[in-house]
């Protein structure tokens, strides 16, 4: 076993893996948050329910299937892999953004309107800060799922740690397989930890959980 070579591969593929996640997940955030905001506007009314329904069904499609569907549609390589990740991460982001905003106590929104805040002011100063932790929970879930799903990118030539895992399986080489699997697991834990930290650092004391006994229940 050439440990030096393996270590080099782990590093290279981890970075590739993270790029897949960052680009696919990043696009999901950039598109998903505004989309969630959009369908949370009262003007969308019942249409929003339809979107949420479809999205919820979409979320039950296995990640491997999503990757599989991409191949006949977009071919192989980095781009289809990223696109598959984007599609898969989009749903939790949209759903949580929508739910986070819609679950705000309507009397709070009404107070804002009653004081003469414009729609945009209510969105940026009231709705988004209050929905922040729910939206971030969606993003966190999406990113962690992405790290897992990105291991399938290998199947359509997208690279990433999946290369090691599937190589290990093909060669019945436990060391290579574990090197890929454990690296992917560590990445998932790191991403989860990182987003947990961000949420905690950015949530105002007034709505942070568990900083007062009342909020703990």
């Amino acid at each position: 076993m050439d440990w030096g070579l393996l270590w080099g591969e782990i590093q290279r593929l981890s970075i590739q893996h993270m790029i897949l996640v960052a680009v696919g997940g990043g696009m999901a955030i950039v598109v998903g948050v505004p989309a969630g905001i959009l369908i949370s506007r009262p003007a969308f009314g019942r249409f929003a329910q339809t979107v949420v329904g479809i999205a919820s069904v979409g979320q039950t499609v296995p990640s491997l299937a999503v990757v599989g569907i991409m191949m006949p549609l977009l071919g192989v390589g980095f781009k289809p892999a990223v696109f598959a990740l984007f599609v898969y991460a989009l749903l939790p982001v949209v759903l949580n953004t929508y739910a986070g905003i819609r679950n705000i106590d309507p009397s709070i929104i009404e107070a804002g309107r009653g004081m003469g805040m414009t729609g945009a002011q209510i969105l940026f100063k009231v709705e988004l800060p209050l929905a922040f932790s729910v939206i971030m929970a969606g993003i966190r879930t999406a990113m962690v799922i992405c790290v897992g799903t990105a291991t399938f990118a290998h199947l359509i030539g997208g690279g990433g740690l999946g290369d090691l895992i599937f190589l290990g399986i093909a060669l019945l080489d436990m060391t290579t397989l574990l090197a890929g699997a454990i690296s992917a697991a560590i990445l998932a834990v790191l991403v989860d930890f990182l987003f947990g930290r961000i949420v905690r650092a950015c949530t105002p004391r007034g709505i942070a959980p568990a900083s007062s006994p009342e909020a703990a229940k």
Partner: protein
Amino acid sequence: MIRLEHVSKAYEGGVNAVNDVSFEVPRGEIAILVGPSGCGKTTTLKMINRLHEPASGKIFVDDVDTSTVDPIELRRNIGYVIQDVGLFPHMTIAENIAVVPHLKKWDRKRIAERVDELLTMMGMPPAEYRNRYPRELSGGQRQRIGVARAMASDPPILLMDEPFGALDPITRERLQNEFLKIQEKLKKTIVFVTHDIDEAIKLGDKVAIMRKGRLIQYDAPSAVLNEPADEFVADFVGQDRTLKSLRLIRTYEVMDADPPALHIQASAAEALSLLSSSSGQKYAWVVGDARELKGLIARKDVLEADASGDAKIADIVNTNVVSVERDTTVKDALSEMLSYGLARVPVVGPEGRLEGVLTFDSIRKVLARIDS
């Protein structure tokens, strides 16, 4: 000034929430909307600041038809206390109060000063409360912040939807009294919603009694009590109308003014001449230089003390006296007297100055007048 002309509003589903309601609130007065749950009070209020648009009819604020005004601009100049308080949980108390001044682009210093001023007015020391979050306050404190927030930019008009709802009777009574004191100074034009007829009678210059979306009677509190428009109003106002009327009368209106008083530095001899058996006086109030109430002195105490030499009033005065403020309602004063078992209470004005005495006898006379 606020004027509603034949205003109606129906929600989807066909409920006629408000049906042909007209009334006018003159500048500087308080109109109270009162009625059973679901009668359309909140809906009426929300049409004034255009959170709801009336289906028909017109609403004027200072003779301007509100449907011609930008609703955002309109709302920034009308303070609004919503029924569920609705403080922003992610903002501190100071930030919550500062919302409208902020929207109006006041500078920081002016906003900070205004926040402190309002917190002080609400009896909540700024240093202690400024940086707390809504969930770190009691329900009553939150309601006060709701009121402070509505008043922040000093709007001439206030819409208040059950601002003192969900409070214990004692706190509510206190906030009501503070509210009247503040209103005395600020003279806002106020539409105030409650479902508590006692609160309506106590606070209103006018009371609007609503039922199933209709305005049944719009009158001064005394008129509502004495000449209810129909059975419903009579029922709603209740049987103990005479007692309720005592809420309409302030202590200073019925007290015996300028009661005899002794200076705290007076001698026992002076006290005795005031309390001589010929005058029939058994007690005298004791006051300081500015006529501020210091206590009470009884003839028998003076007699006892005098026997032992040249006593000063200051040594024998009973400083433990219960007093009421001049604009306490007679009803509150009466319950004070009953709970302490007093036949008379001193009435004090600003800085605790002695202004008069309220006795059972004077209350009895008032009751007789109301009943006749």
